[in-house]
């Protein structure tokens, strides 16, 4: 029984995105509408392997909807979304997409509050996600080492056996990022990682995310312009469901369109 439940999962584990062209995520001509409202309008976006990309845009520009489409939560009306060249994400469900190597951090930190920090990471580790395998699962030494390493990376070594619900807001955000890392993803989608963080915590998060780029591709959605400035090499501006501009931070800031619809609003406040 356990082998039956395990084998299809193992096949999925072997799904590797084909990134020979240097692009890990293709989003092409995607449209999503909710009751006539176009949340995404003919949007195209390419994320390169190993890059750190920031997505900015006003409320309702379609940032979260885009994340939902990539992770399988929302199905687009038309368009193509693929992981590498060959893995069609539109045919997969959330769990399969996660197992294929796309991790997502939610806007509101979501950790398992009644489990310890260690257990949170244990559940997130890559590996067989089937029922029978987990019923008789024993943590290997290798896996313990991996968890220890992640605890170190996210700076929660001392909180290892604490209930996740007792962590501070910033620590929960980090734990969630740690959970993503445990899954060994190729692509990380991070929604507003510094919301509600102190200046110090924000700085550490910036360091953490920039250090992840290279081995992983990271897409960050963020409102905090100072934070975006501190980490971004390339920024994509969304407006009314499609891409308005793309480029380095200085290019973006000098783009008259962007200044008018987005940055202008912010400085005007």
């Amino acid at each position, binding site marked *: 029984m356990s082998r039956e439940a395990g084998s299809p999962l193992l096949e999925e584990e072997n799904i590797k995105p084909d990134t020979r062209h240097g692009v890990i995520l293709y989003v092409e001509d995607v449209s999503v509408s909710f009751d006539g409202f176009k949340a995404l309008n003919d949007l195209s976006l390419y994320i390169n392997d190993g890059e750190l990309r920031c997505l900015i845009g006003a409320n309702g520009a379609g940032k979260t909807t885009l994340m939902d489409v990539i*992770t399988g939560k929302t199905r687009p009306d038309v368009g193509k979304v693929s992981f590498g060249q060959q893995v069609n994400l539109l045919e997969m*469900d*959330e*769990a*399969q997409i*996660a*197992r294929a190597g796309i*991790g*997502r951090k*939610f806007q509101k930190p*979501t*950790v*398992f*509050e*009644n*489990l310890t920090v260690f*257990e949170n990471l*244990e*559940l*997130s580790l*890559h590996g067989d*996600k089937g*029922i029978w395998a*987990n*019923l*008789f*699962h024993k*943590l290997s030494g290798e896996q313990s080492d991996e968890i220890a390493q992640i605890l170190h990376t996210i700076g929660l070594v001392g909180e290892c056996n604490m209930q996740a619900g007792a962590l501070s807001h910033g620590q929960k955000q980090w734990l969630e990022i740690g*959970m993503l890392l445990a*899954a060994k993803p190729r692509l990380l989608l991070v929604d507003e990682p510094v919301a509600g963080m102190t200046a110090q915590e924000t700085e550490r998060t910036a360091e953490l995310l920039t250090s992840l780029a290279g081995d992983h591709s990271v897409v960050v959605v963020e409102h905090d312009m100072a934070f975006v400035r501190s980490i971004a090499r390339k920024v994509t501006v969304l407006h009314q469901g499609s891409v308005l501009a793309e480029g380095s931070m200085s290019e973006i800031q000098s783009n008259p369109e962007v200044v008018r619809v987005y940055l202008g609003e912010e400085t005007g406040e």
Partner: protein
Amino acid sequence: MADLFKKLGSLPVVVGCLFITTLYVSVCNLAFPEGSALHVSTYTVTLFGKYLCYALLALAVDLVWGYCGILSLGHGAFFALGGYAMGMYLMRQIGDRGVYGNPELPDFMVFLNWDALPWYWAGSDSFIWMMVMVVAAPGLLAYIFGTMAFRSRVSGVYLSIMTQAVTYALMLAFFRNEMGFGGNNGLTDFKDILGFSLQSDTTRIALFATTATFLAIGFAVCHFIVNSKMGRVVTAIRDSENRVRFIGYKPENYKVWIFVVSAMLAGIAGALYVPQVGIINPGEFSPLSSIEMVVWVAIGGRGSLYGAIIGAIVVSYAKTRFTAIMPEAWLYALGGLFVLVTLLLPKGIAGFFPAIAARFNQKKLAEVKS
């Protein structure tokens, strides 16, 4: 060694308590004559056997509600299905000793002028086959219901209402004579089980011991499940189903699995219940009794396995006492108990002791600090 103790947790205590109770009850019932101060009456034995069945049922409810967050208000259906499977076997054991003396057909079928057993009564004279049905029938219902409900991502209140509707629908169906389960009289007048008379004290004691054994096994199985990594996934689903999905698990599969296991446990509880109380009728499907099961768990301590057992026994004992003194006031008392426990002990009786211990430790810590 200390590690092993930590892993086993409350398991040795619960199993030990059940073993001692069984030993005490059987010795006092069989070895001491009636009238002796140490004698335990057969009536009491049966009553306690009934409580232990309820305890196993509460364990099943706690597994899905306490650990997985699925508030099932229809566990009575699984309990009753298990009970009916056992009842069917016991009916066939009556043989030609029924009122109509038909060796093949149970009395109610003769009364309805049926001349043959319906197809679903096939094999009901085989103990082994019916014991398979005890777990298979509730398990299948739970699988079908669970697959449909959890795959469509129905949860929360809507799910609870649906479970309630299922048990209500089954109650109405089982009330009909044409269903072939004895209509509103249900199945009763049992004579013996595996050839032993149900009226004899030794059979009663054996049934009690079997129930205690199954409760111990059920507890061990649940303990193993909730302390495995699989159990932690289930707890994680309770806390944040979406997060679980986005780290690569399929929560609906886990929910169906745990729901089926729970239904099977409930079925076993029902099968043990029927020979001890001597009857199974559609009343067991009533929505009210399913709600009562949830109250046991809430009072005993949701998310604590031994809490569920304590809750079922305490509330059932209170019910026995109360209905003897003031039958009409029982529901008010139950409601009052529920409100009091929710207000004063949000984690139930099982949460009371750790809370006291924590407070004591804190005081001690404060003293040390000052």
